[in-house]
């Protein structure tokens, strides 16, 4: 099995509930980082980080610019900035135009991660009502990464994972109950 570098999760409407179910079941000594990009209102950053931090033994923090990406951490994209990844595995922030009416945009982070991690990348697109993230999945797959979508039948809003399945030809479709096991199985540390 190959060692992965990052597991990047994108989601919009209906995705927070999925994360609240999945993160508590994820092992804390992962040998890769989890990076989360969720669409949300401005100014609710620390709230979201706190909310997720209380549900998991993993270290959860909002991504800072120039911050080195460490294994076993869960990073949250700050609201109102795009989150990118540099070749030296640090974060960059970008306040450019919204993409798919969104900032942070899931496409931006997936595409940037695809450039840096190549085949060591796994991307998962969750529930949501627009198609942000689908182009990013296509880029991730093109560069050899693994792409995943939430089973639309289990999604509060099925449009986003449906688009992922129909347009990005994802590697696998996962039910909520399968996600934590899937993530844990990717880690070579058990």
């Amino acid at each position, binding site marked *: 099995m190959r060692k992965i570098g990052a597991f990047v999760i994108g989601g919009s409407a209906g995705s927070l509930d999925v994360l609240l179910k999945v993160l508590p079941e994820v092992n804390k000594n992962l040998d890769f980082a989890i990076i989360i990009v969720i669409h949300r209102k401005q100014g609710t950053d620390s709230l979201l980080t706190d909310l997720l931090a209380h549900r998991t033994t993993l270290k959860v923090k909002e991504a*800072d*610019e*120039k911050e080195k990406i460490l294994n076993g951490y869960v990073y949250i994209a*700050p609201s109102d*900035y795009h989150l*990118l*990844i*540099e*070749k030296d595995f640090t974060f*960059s*922030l*970008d*306040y*450019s*135009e919204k993409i798919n009416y969104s900032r942070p945009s899931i496409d*931006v982070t997936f*595409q*940037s991660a*695809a*450039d*840096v991690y*190549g085949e060591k990348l796994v991307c998962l697109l969750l529930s949501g009502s627009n198609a942000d993230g689908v182009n990013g999945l296509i*880029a*991730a797959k*093109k*560069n*050899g990464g693994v792409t995943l979508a939430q089973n639309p039948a289990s999604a509060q809003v099925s449009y986003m994972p449906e688009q992922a399945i129909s347009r990005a030809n994802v590697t696998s479709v996962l039910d909520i109950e399968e996600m934590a096991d899937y993530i844990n199985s990717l880690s070579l540390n058990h």
Partner: protein
Amino acid sequence: MSNSGPISDEEVEILINDVLEQHGYDFTGYSRASLKRRLARLYALDKHVSFAEFRYKTLNDDVYFKHFVEGVTVNVTEMFRDPSFYRLLREKILPSLNTYPFIRIWLAGCSTGEEAYSIAIILKELNLLHKSLIYATDINPTVLEKAANGMFPLSQMKSYSENYIASGGKKDFSSYYSASYSLAKFDTELKSKMIFSTHNLVSDRSFNEFQLILCRNVLIYFDRPLQFRVFQLFDQSLENLGYLALGTKETLDFSPISPAYKRVGTDKVWRKVSA
């Protein structure tokens, strides 16, 4: 290395080198992930069919190069963005400058000017505008022309008005502009205290001493060494006890000048405490 977009890492470096050699603009200290995305975006928007064509136009066509600079740099801005920051300006920082006979403010990376007009509105409400001067600078001459016009989309006024109120503004925001078709034209009195000029933070020097320098959401595009150089430039341009204001996600911490600065409140504002 892999590429998800139309421009490769090598091609990014070729363009950076061309632009430096041919036009004297130095993008070598820009964070690559964002720059690469801007270049890919410009390439797609302008419907180039090959990298060779993109490169040729950038090198040889001065009109296209102006457009290139505008496209590569990020010019997204709004009025009273981050209302809590503007509340701090209104309630603490600008009133403390009242003791000076003359207030000089440098807005570095002013883009299309929305922040300059926001600051001028607060200065006017604090009765400080008459003795203030806002030096608004940007690398990009095209955005400065827009800034000097003082006209912003009318469609934005509802959100700007909400920001203004959230930042402690008490007046009717619409009293500051007149509607003209799809644009809001701001009072010329606000503009009378602004000086617009090109200034490149990468290559240009300090040009005055200020009591307040604002540079918000510009440094996120620079790598650490360039950030530190720009902090030195700000330090040389700031009077003792002057203030430096950065974007919500930017910090002076870990920089060589940070020992001489003290954080003010919870927003990203620092005060110079020793010369």
